[in-house]
């Protein structure tokens, strides 16, 4: 069952290469459009403050053993206090952030653009020069339901996805470091963004609540002694 399928060269010329070229061009176009449309982010002071609180709380967690126990306890109360602690998020606020995210026009436009470029005709049109195992079938032949076709034959949809992830490197070369395939990053961001601030605050609060303070300075005194002893000798 491993006969070679004869592939029309016309398919190669008119689908494979134009698809890659068009993807590169669309990527570049999207980059410039986003640069033009992008107003500098005007962050809400509340969001900035929350970001900074998270950083400070994280510092506290990581370096807690460097400050005296009393100082640590004071700070923990300051952060985790049930009524007015910095990390305590009342339930009502969590919903707000998500609604805000969906009404952001930029992301809506990007989602539309992505859907447009998803419409690609299906078909089998190229063959990878090296042999592959059966496992790659799901990855490379997305949409073709024949199990007898050799795995080396790649469907166009799979070719599109391969390009999607592969051209990331190419973009970072052409467009400089900032915009290597913004899309995938945005998709990953969008999932976590809405709940992010309130969830990270809650996470930090839990971390701090659990933390046991173990003052490291006692050890330091002995180490200093060792250092000085070595110097004296």
């Amino acid at each position, binding site marked *: 069952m491993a006969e070679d399928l004869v592939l029309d060269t016309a398919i190669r010329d008119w689908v494979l290469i134009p698809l890659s070229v068009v993807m590169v061009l669309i990527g570049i176009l999207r980059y410039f459009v986003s640069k033009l449309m992008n107003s500098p982010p005007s962050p809400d002071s509340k969001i*900035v*403050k929350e970001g900074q609180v998270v*950083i*400070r709380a994280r*510092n506290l967690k990581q*370096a807690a053993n460097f400050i005296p126990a009393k100082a640590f306890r004071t700070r923990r109360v300051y952060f985790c206090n049930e009524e007015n602690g910095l990390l305590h998020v009342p339930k009502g606020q969590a919903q707000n952030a998500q609604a805000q995210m969906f009404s952001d026009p930029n992301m809506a436009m990007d989602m539309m653009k992505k859907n447009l470029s998803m419409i690609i005709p299906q078909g089998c049109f190229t063959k990878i020069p090296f042999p592959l195992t059966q496992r790659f079938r799901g990855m490379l032949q997305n949409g073709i339901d024949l199990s007898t076709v050799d795995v080396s034959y790649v469907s166009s949809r799979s070719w599109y996805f391969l390009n999607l992830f592969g051209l990331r490197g190419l973009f970072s070369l052409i467009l400089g470091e900032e915009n290597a395939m913004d899309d995938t990053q945005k998709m990953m961001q969008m999932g976590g963004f809405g709940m992010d601030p309130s969830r990270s605050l809650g996470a930090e609060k839990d971390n701090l609540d659990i933390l046991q303070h173990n003052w490291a300075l006692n050890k330091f005194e002995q180490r*200093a*002694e060792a250092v*000085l002893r*070595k110097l004296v000798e």
Partner: protein
Amino acid sequence: MVCKAEQTELNRLESQVDNGGGGAWEYLNLIRKLKVRRSDDVVKYGSPILNDPKKRSALGDDEWTLYEQVAVAAMDCQRLDIAKDCVKALQKKFPESRRVGRLQALLLEAKGLWEEADKAYSNLLEDNPLDQVIHKRRVAIAKAQGDNLKAIESLNKYLEIFMADHDAWRELAENYVSLQMYKQAAFCYEELLLSQPTVPLHHLAYGDVLYTLGGLENLQTAKKYYASTIDLTKGTNTRALYGICLCASAINQLSKGRNKDDKDELHSLAATVLENEYKRTAPKKLALLSASLKSFKLA
């Protein structure tokens, strides 16, 4: 803070430029990247580049960054004429820019016109309420006028929003120390320790403040922080060595007759290292050192 490799590179470029070997542009770039404060050099080497139209056009778009850098450096050296020219050139090119607005307000500050500068900054803040640099400039104005309390107040307000800015915490700590509000200064140094636990300077400063606050518990804690400074600097920090001796003698004084199971070895080791250090670097002052160490041991 600049790491060692960058420091050597900076010095190398500096000597190269000083001896007329060219490379002024790389030197200025490195200064800007490392945010080192070498305003004399910037003005000395930056102005000829800016005044020569050929060299200026060779820079392309970086020309404006150089204008900004030379403007700030000129203000630092009180060469307000140069600064005014640079700001004027930038204003012509970028008329509605927030960055140029900041420079203009900075120029007012340099001239000593505090009220106008403050008003200019407030105007800029209306459009950009979250600009950190502008907030910090207002604190600097308060400090320059000698109004430490106002500076502290503005810094506290700034830190309510931007609480992860460790430079601001450091500035606040120094302000508190200058006003002898040591408890608050200790809090600020704790913040610094949390954000940068491996920087020995913070351990040292915290130890200093605790020692100044006094009280047996604080003294013991201070001793521990001096010890950690010694550990982090491998025993080269003279101030920490002194700190240990002073803490030990103060603790002895306070707990006279009580439990003497304190490890005295640290104290005597520190004294020995100090003596060796002085023998090596300042032998004339060795007698002074020995006398003071003797008084510590007695006390």
